[in-house]
């Protein structure tokens, strides 16, 4: 009599695979926007507590990325952009990724709640749950509005940073939330315009797949028209000084110009690629200028308009 046991092949994943699982590039943007929310919030936070909050937000973002890769391993394998991720390549088992993601998610929320405050921890928990359950499990495979609604998860980190300092919410972080929220569609639709074949192969109903390139270009322009004034809103509302306002208006104008080029010049991928690349710089510029503006307001000759 013989008994045959089957088991999953032991993992050969190393540190690089686990880092890749946490989507480090997305994580860096999350940490940066959370840092801005934390630094512009009124009040004082001890540097150690502030650093702890940022680490927890980074780990929470990594958890969301890991759980996303666990759930999406089947479609990642069919897309050129994601086929080299640790699970599709077989370096990491889905079970290991799931365990890693859940451990990081629970750990980051619990530590943030214990060491910083409960409001920030609850917001981080909502962010992770929204990204994994609402976006990844539900919207991504079911509607072309996936990245519009799902973008809320990526827009929450500055709100968490603000809550880490104040223990609550205010209009100012909500404006930052709205900037990222309206930035997400032009950013991802520009990418999806030149990766449409990937999305078709994976069966993801991105806007260019469902409604075509023409409609996508139109909606990119519409969202950019909303985004440009919203980017300058912190200045209009008196939360930031003229320096921020000028940079936001100029950069917003550049976003509109690039979106117009995407709308009018339909041949080739270059306009979409340029818009995608510049959109990252645009968001970085806005948030970096908020920091510069705060530093100038504190130590320099130009104060915020409302000050």
């Amino acid at each position: 009599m013989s008994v045959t046991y089957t088991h999953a092949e032991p993992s050969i994943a190393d540190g690089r695979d686990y880092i890749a699982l946490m989507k480090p590039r997305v994580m860096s943007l999350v940490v940066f926007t959370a840092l801005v929310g934390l630094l512009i919030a009124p009040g004082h936070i001890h540097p150690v507590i502030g650093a702890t909050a940022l680490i927890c937000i980074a780990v929470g973002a990594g958890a969301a990325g890991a759980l996303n890769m666990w759930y999406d391993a089947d479609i990642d394998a069919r897309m050129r952009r994601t086929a080299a991720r640790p699970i599709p390549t077989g370096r990491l088992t889905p079970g290991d990724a799931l365990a890693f993601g859940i451990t990081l998610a629970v750990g980051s929320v619990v530590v943030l709640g214990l060491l910083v405050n409960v409001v920030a921890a609850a917001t981080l928990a909502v962010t992770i749950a929204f990204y994994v359950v609402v976006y990844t499990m539900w919207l991504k495979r079911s509607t072309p509005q996936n990245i519009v609604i799902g973008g809320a998860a990526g827009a929450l980190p500055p709100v968490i940073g603000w809550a880490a300092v104040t223990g609550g919410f205010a209009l100012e972080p909500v404006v930052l939330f709205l900037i990222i929220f309206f930035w997400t569609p032009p950013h991802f639709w520009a990418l999806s315009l030149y990766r449409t074949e990937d999305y078709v192969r994976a069966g993801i109903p991105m806007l260019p797949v469902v409604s075509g390139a023409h409609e996508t270009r139109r909606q990119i322009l519409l969202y950019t028209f909303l985004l440009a004034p919203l980017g300058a809103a912190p200045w209009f509302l008196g939360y930031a000084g003229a320096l921020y306002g000028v940079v936001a208006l100029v950069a917003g104008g550049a976003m509109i110009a690039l979106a117009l080029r995407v709308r009018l010049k339909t041949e080739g991928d270059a306009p979409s690629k340029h818009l995608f690349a510049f959109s990252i710089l645009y968001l970085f510029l806005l948030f970096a200028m908020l920091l510069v503006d705060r530093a100038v307001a504190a130590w320099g000759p130009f104060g915020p308009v409302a000050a």
Partner: protein
Amino acid sequence: MTITSAAMSEPAQEQKPAPLAPPPVEEGKMGIRLTEQQQRARRARSIAIALALGALVVLFYIVTLVKGPGVLVRPL
């Protein structure tokens, strides 16, 4: 992986009374045998987990000092 019971494969009349313990298995044949790469990966993961737990201990210690003795006395 296949485990074969020696007691089941030999004629019954030639056997001594059945032992209570499972039949001896040649050393090194049981369980999952990891390749060198898998062993390296497992060792690296173990070290990473140890470092992460150590970092958490240090973090909680430092934050306890920062927050002072009243760390557990606070409004929720």
